[in-house]
């Protein structure tokens, strides 16, 4: 399970970084979203991967650490807010600068 999880995180991050480097606002936003997914999953896995274990002591044979779940929840909420903001900002810069390049002008060919 750990290997599969790690590969999934790696693929998510690599795709995110690739999109981030496309230097157009929409791919950049998508890239940031993918990276934040990867980061949230990573944070979640820091309580170690287990199946069928509750986050309450005594409910199941083993219990998992509830703190990473609380942390990841906070991170998700903040990530949503930031994504919403960056989408609005991209639209604003598209309107103001008349193109979607992150530098505000088309690169010289």
């Amino acid at each position: 399970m750990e290997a599969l999880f790690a590969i999934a995180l790696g693929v998510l991050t690599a795709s995110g970084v690739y999109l981030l480097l496309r230097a157009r606002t929409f791919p950049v936003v998508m890239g940031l979203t993918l990276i934040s997914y990867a980061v949230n999953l990573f944070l979640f896995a820091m309580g170690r991967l287990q199946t069928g274990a509750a986050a309450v002591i005594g409910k199941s044979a083993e219990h998992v650490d509830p703190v990473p779940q609380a942390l990841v929840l906070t991170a998700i909420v903040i990530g949503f807010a930031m994504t919403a903001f960056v989408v609005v900002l991209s639209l604003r810069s598209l309107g103001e600068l008349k193109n979607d390049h992150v530098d505000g002008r088309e690169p010289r060919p």
Partner: protein
Amino acid sequence: MNHALILPVLLPMFAGSLLLLGARLGMPATRRLSLLSVGLQVAVSAWLLVQAGDGQVQVYALGDWRPPFGIVLMFDRLSALMLFITALLALFSLLYATRGDDTRGSNFHALFQFQLMGINGAFLTGDLFNLFVFFEILLIASYSLLLHGGGPERAKAGLHYVVLNLVGSSFFLIALGVLFGIAGTLNMADLAVKVSEASADQAPLLGAAGMLLLVVFGLKAAFLPLYFWLPRTYASATAPVAALFAIMTKVGIYSILRVYTLIYGAEAGSLANMALDWLWPLALLTLAVGVIGALAATSLQELIAYLVIVSVGTLLAGIAIGTPEALSASLYYLIHTTWATGALFLLADLIARQRGVKGGLLLQGPALLQPHVLGALFFIGAIAVVGLPPLSGFLGKVLLLHALQPGPQAVLLWPVILIGSLGSLIAFSRAGSTLFWRTGLTVLGSAERDGKGLLACVGLLLLSPLLVAFAHPVLEYLEATAAQLHDLDLYRQILTPGGAA
């Protein structure tokens, strides 16, 4: 438990929320509420500054969950000092904003308060995850404040700033995940204990997390490979916002200081002082690059933004030397540079508004309406920032150079700082002669006198001579601060029941 500790977070939070609810209050009432909140913050932080003088590390356990299990605010001399610097800077920036900049977009005052809440929280928190949360609060407020006023220049700079900081936040979370996965805690004092007891197979991962944190804080503090966002961002922000942003790089510096003295400090076993070897060359390079940027700047705002980078380099050099003397000198320089660059950003705007479309561009322009007043202020501000006697920049640099023992470090730092100061002086002289002497004969009809703005700018500049006049008590406080930062047992005490006030 001292409930006053949480006031610097609660005050701006409630003021900001009230301002959002009362969006239809009308400008005069909004301004009064905002000024009242910042005024109270100045009073509270001054009182806390006095309280911190007893040398204790105080803890405010939220919900009375004892550390390391609950979330805590940790309050020492350094926190008190940073809170006080922020509150005073905010007061003058806000005064300047109330003369008209706050009407150029909506919700300026609410955002300003939330920005202060984030900054104050970052200075107070004793928990790394909460440091992340407060970073995000101050960042999201700063994104909106940066865009305040609109325009393509701000949208472009804003996009870079936001995307870079979002990537930075991802790094921050990865570092926190690794730290929590290994150590099982995010309380700074508890982490310090866990890192010092780390086994040989845990240490490399903890070190990697520490280096990731350095990247994140470096992005905030804007040192060498990570500063490229800063000049354009600061140059395009509205003047009161740019002035408030003078504290933002210091949030990064504060975090570096906190994490690499407490968690990865002298007692961190194999990871002891691991950041200092990296910080030293980066600091010198940052200083050099900042000066080159200042010499090449095309507008006054950009010039001041590059001097922010120079000041970051100087501060980091002081931290990297690592001795208490260098640290207290650095802190003195930190106080000076925050207020002085804030004042210069305000002054740049006063000058730019008397030059019409030329703004702050360093080109021949129309004659200024108040050349003597603004020229005198520019002269004083430049002397303070460059570091010529008799103002506080000079004292800060002398203290820093004096803190070095003769040796290889001194051989490197002395010429970099002295030649850097000369470079800044040349940049300022060129800018000043263009702005005040290479002018046309007529004054623009649109130029206006701005008594209130001038007052805010003069108030902030006056803090520089005051800092020199009261150098003795200030330095005594700072030396105690540096000593306290290196006394790690004091911080570990907060983990034992009843061990902290």
